[in-house]
């Protein structure tokens, strides 16, 4: 496959430029039963995230008397890939669940809810490379939708290398035949990196280039996350708030 992934015009297999994202659609509050939810379509990826909590932590021995736990489950549905995926947790999904939990735990104000857990469920309905990034992007929108206090939302994107060139947001073919793949997640405002993994090789220059692409793309994704939430809760007017009653005055009335 060497030398075939980027054509003479600098376009990739799916016609994108090297620093171009796939088409991303984010929708917040799609599930009625969960406390918060989000649905993300990212190219051919389809991801659903749901949040419950903060709720009583089970198993009890995991409870932390000083803060809440963020427990994430990343799961690929059997029909998410072309060869049926054997259902249930495997080495890969346990790893992804762990790194996503840790990224989310950093932004949530866990100390507000001691002894509880915030449960995040990420279901991959359709996979086409970059599902952990899509999953984390969806999960942070779902957390915000659940009304959980948090520092910021987390946009996430993968950067990779194909044909010796750094490219943004690998698709399935590029992921399979590429030379490197590096998912990252950041807080755009502070530039803090919450998730970074890499397989393959990159030189220092290539790495710096990759970071530059990644940070740029995360800004765009962050904007999409914000738009999704604002669209969901668009209000014409908040007359009700003029009637805001101080807590002491809210009497039980018989």
């Amino acid at each position, binding site marked *: 496959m060497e030398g075939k992934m980027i054509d003479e015009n600098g376009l990739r297999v799916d016609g994108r430029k090297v620093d171009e994202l796939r088409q991303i659609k984010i929708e917040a509050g799609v599930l009625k039963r969960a*406390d*918060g939810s989000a649905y993300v379509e990212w190219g051919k990826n389809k991801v659903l995230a749901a949040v419950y*909590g*903060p*709720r*009583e932590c089970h198993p009890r021995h995991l409870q932390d*008397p*000083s803060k809440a736990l963020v427990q994430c489950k990343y799961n690929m549905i059997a029909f998410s890939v072309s060869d049926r995926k054997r259902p249930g947790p495997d080495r890969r999904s346990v790893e992804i669940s762990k790194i996503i939990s840790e990224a989310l735990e950093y*932004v949530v*104000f866990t100390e*507000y*809810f*001691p*002894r*509880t857990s915030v449960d995040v469920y990420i279901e991959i309905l359709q996979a086409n490379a970059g599902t952990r990034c899509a999953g984390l992007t969806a999960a942070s929108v779902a957390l*915000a*939708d*659940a*009304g*959980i*206090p*948090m*520092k*910021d*939302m987390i946009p996430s994107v993968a950067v990779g290398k194909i044909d010796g060139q750094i490219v943004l947001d690998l698709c399935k073919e590029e992921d399979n035949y590429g030379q490197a793949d590096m998912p990252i997640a950041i*807080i755009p*405002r*502070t530039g803090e990196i919450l998730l970074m993994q890499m397989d393959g090789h990159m030189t220092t220059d290539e790495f710096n280039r990759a970071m530059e692409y990644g940070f740029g793309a995360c800004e765009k994704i962050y904007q999409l*996350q*914000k738009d999704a*939430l*604002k669209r969901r*809760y*668009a*209000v*014409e*007017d*908040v*007359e*009700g*708030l*003029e*009637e*805001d*009653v101080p*807590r002491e*005055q*809210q*009497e*039980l*009335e*018989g």
Partner: protein
Amino acid sequence: MKESEIMSKDGMVRSVREIVVPGELLDSGKLKPGNGTYVADGKIFASQLGIKSTKSNYVNVIPLGGRYIPVTGDNVIGKVIDIGPSNWLIDINSPYPAPLHVNEVPWRVEFGDTARYLNVGDTILAKVLMVDETKRVQVTMKDQGLRKLQGGQIVDISHSKVPRVIGKSGSMIQLIKSHTNCRIFVGQNGRIWLDGDIENIVVAIRAIRMIDEDAQTMRLTERVKEYLESVMKPSQ
């Protein structure tokens, strides 16, 4: 950012407030951080999805959702979920179950005789007695008006909508009560207990659902009133 003001149809000036998402900059100087906000590098950011509101030099975010976190002094509606020899465990619709000790009920209860007074599944009006720093909660029934609720129905709404259901100095809840002739208790934890004729309860529940779903929309009180008047005649 300054709040924009618009003229609505009836000529009244109303301020339109904006929806903010976690991490959004609220203010970078003059104001003080209030509820639903946090401070980083001397600037105030939203920590929750909600509506930005500025009141007497404080920026607050009024949350649109989230779980009920008990606060000392809140009146809540609880369900008995477990019984011990000297206490009951009450579910108050929050992440934390709340024990109710026999000393905190208006009856004299012998040790081990708790089930005679309150059983699993019973509903009570209670008050949050105290909450410690690890959010261990205790509730009490020793206060005026607190009691076991017999009969009636329970509706759950988001606890952030409770002020909307009550309305300014009780206007909304009075409206529903006078039109439907129901007895209604609203708990801070987002549980509402209603009792009355079954047809009237159905109407009241529908009105409450309306408030829950459209809490942030225009002319809510008038719309609820219109609805109630369309199905009921006022009882006075």
